[in-house]
């Protein structure tokens, strides 16, 4: 025989425990009071609401290092458009599931970071009202040019243009990327560095091999020459054949 209304009393005990616990137990009260400003002041006017970028990023209650929101374009140190990684290959545009990316290739080519001159995006628009933050563009990008931003305060009074992010809005530095996603950025940079190192190593190896080959060739030639010279001392010596630029060209073409 159970107590009359015992289940109700048990439930009331649970709610009472939660009521009291919410004042003492961090585990129970998981919500946090949302401060308007760090200096605990009200915003000066209603239009103040979309916060400054730095402030948004410092607000770790809403944004963690793992959050992804909308894509952005990465550029390396220097002027954004001079160092943008994107080469307007349009793979992301093709793969984007909701098709929110629009890219126009540039007419001319541009050289970045000592690499071969490539196209750059003349237009790069992302309609974030359509984007669903799926990160597929990031996955398919072969140049590590597009990554996810965690900025979320994008509210705007402009109904049509306001949510269409243009190329210049999207361009963010690699430092910024490191700030918002330190682990991911470090991993990515490491991978790029590894790849680059691997490439360098390969290049070096190739160069060395070439050098060796050239040396060998030169040697052989020299020997041959010597031989020839020995054979006919009248003929003048030829310039050595190996060229640095050729090797580089070959490497870039991979």
């Amino acid at each position, binding site marked *: 025989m159970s107590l009359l*209304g*015992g*289940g109700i009393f048990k439930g009331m005990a*649970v709610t009472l425990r939660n009521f009291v616990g919410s004042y003492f137990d961090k585990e129970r009260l998981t919500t946090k009071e949302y401060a308007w400003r760090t200096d605990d002041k009200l915003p000066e006017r209603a239009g103040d609401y979309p916060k400054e970028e730095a402030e948004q990023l410092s607000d770790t209650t809403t944004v963690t290092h*793992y959050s992804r929101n909308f894509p952005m374009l990465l550029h390396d140190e220097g002027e954004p458009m001079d160092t943008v990684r994107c080469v307007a290959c349009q793979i992301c545009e093709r793969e*984007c*599931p909701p098709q929110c990316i629009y890219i126009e290739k540039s007419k001319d080519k541009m050289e970045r970071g000592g690499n071969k001159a490539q196209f750059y995006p003349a237009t790069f628009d992302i309609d974030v009202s359509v984007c*669903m933050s799926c990160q*597929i563009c990031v996955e398919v990008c072969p140049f590590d040019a597009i990554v996810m931003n965690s900025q979320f305060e994008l509210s705007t009074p402009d109904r049509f243009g306001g949510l269409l992010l243009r190329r210049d809005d999207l361009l963010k530095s690699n430092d910024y990327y490191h700030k918002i996603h330190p*682990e991911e950025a470090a991993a990515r940079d490491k991978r790029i560095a590894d790849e680059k190192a691997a490439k360098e190593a390969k290049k070096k190896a190739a160069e060395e091999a070439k050098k060796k080959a050239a040396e060998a060739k030169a040697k052989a030639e020299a020997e041959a020459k010597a031989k020839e010279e020995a054979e006919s001392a009248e003929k003048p010596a030829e310039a050595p054949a190996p060229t640095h630029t050729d090797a580089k060209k070959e490497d870039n073409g991979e």
Partner: protein
Amino acid sequence: MPNYELIQQDGLETSLLEVSMGPHHPSTHGVFRMDVKLDGETVVDLKPVFGYLHRNHEKLAEAMSYLASMPFTDRLDYFNSMTNNWAYALAAEQLIEIEIPERAEYLRVIMSELTRLVNHVSLVGFFVNDLGALGTPLLYAFREREKILDLFEQASGARMMCNYFRFGGLRCDVPEGWLDRTREVVDRFPKFLDEYEKLLCENEIILSRTQGVGNLSKELAINAGITGPMLRASGVNYDIRKVDNYGIYDRFKFRVPYSKGKVGDCYDRFMVRMLEMRESIEILKQALDGIEAGPIMGNAGKVFKPAKAEAYGRVEAPKGELGFYLVADGTTQPYRYRVRPPSFINLTVLQDMCIGQQVADAVIILGSIDIVLGEVDR
């Protein structure tokens, strides 16, 4: 003016009241409509109307690459994006020879069982909310759900639309320390469940509101193709994790709770879910013990281009059997893409369960079916 139809009942002649509950109604769990004919408070006829959230999911998928559909599967049952991803990945992986690394399999199980916890705990909260509690159980449920969603966010970058699974593995590895945090959450969960059970399972009002309400017989449940906890609440021992042993479920020891009776009512459906959560915790503990370091992506190529074939992949989603049927025609896009949504098929018996019940019962019966309109309407 509404249609009134004269009816005879108990010798008292009254007129029927036609109420269109929804699509804007607090307890239809989205944009769902029930055209209810009421005799006083009793439901004499009920017609479910849906399609308000139709997004052309299946046809869209036929016009884009296999991978591009993956984020869209998140939006089917937006409570359980991980299991949706898994079902789709399973189907696609059957189309092509692909090897899934060990660590990825373990993480898939962990994610899927965490999803089950998320779904069941909030379903119980919503259900009790439909019963009329002022959100208290729901908010306790959401408090716990938040902790799991934080884990999802750390792993995949998003809380709900995770888009985490890939053909042949997972998109990325979990960050450092994630497994420890998960273990902490999992270890604490039973304590919360005890409290939750104390709050709900013995409450006289809940008992008398749910028992004998929304009866679904075993035969009807089987014939209507009901799956998941709802089928088990009607007394059928059927769980795809046991039947198919997909993934690595055969390595874990767990039990499947099901009802003793031949008829399942709302109380059974509620309790089966409560008990399933405990089993999920067991699986999670075993999986967290068993997981080892390793790669998370197999030998999958960059371009997914299967040969001509058909495949059907199904998982035990928290709501029931979630299946994806794919027909490949040798291109990078599926020729046919079809979802078997558990919510939709479980919803088909709504009318049978509701007729003769009170209008307040119709609401909780709908709640106990556990539908998500994103999946019903696709």
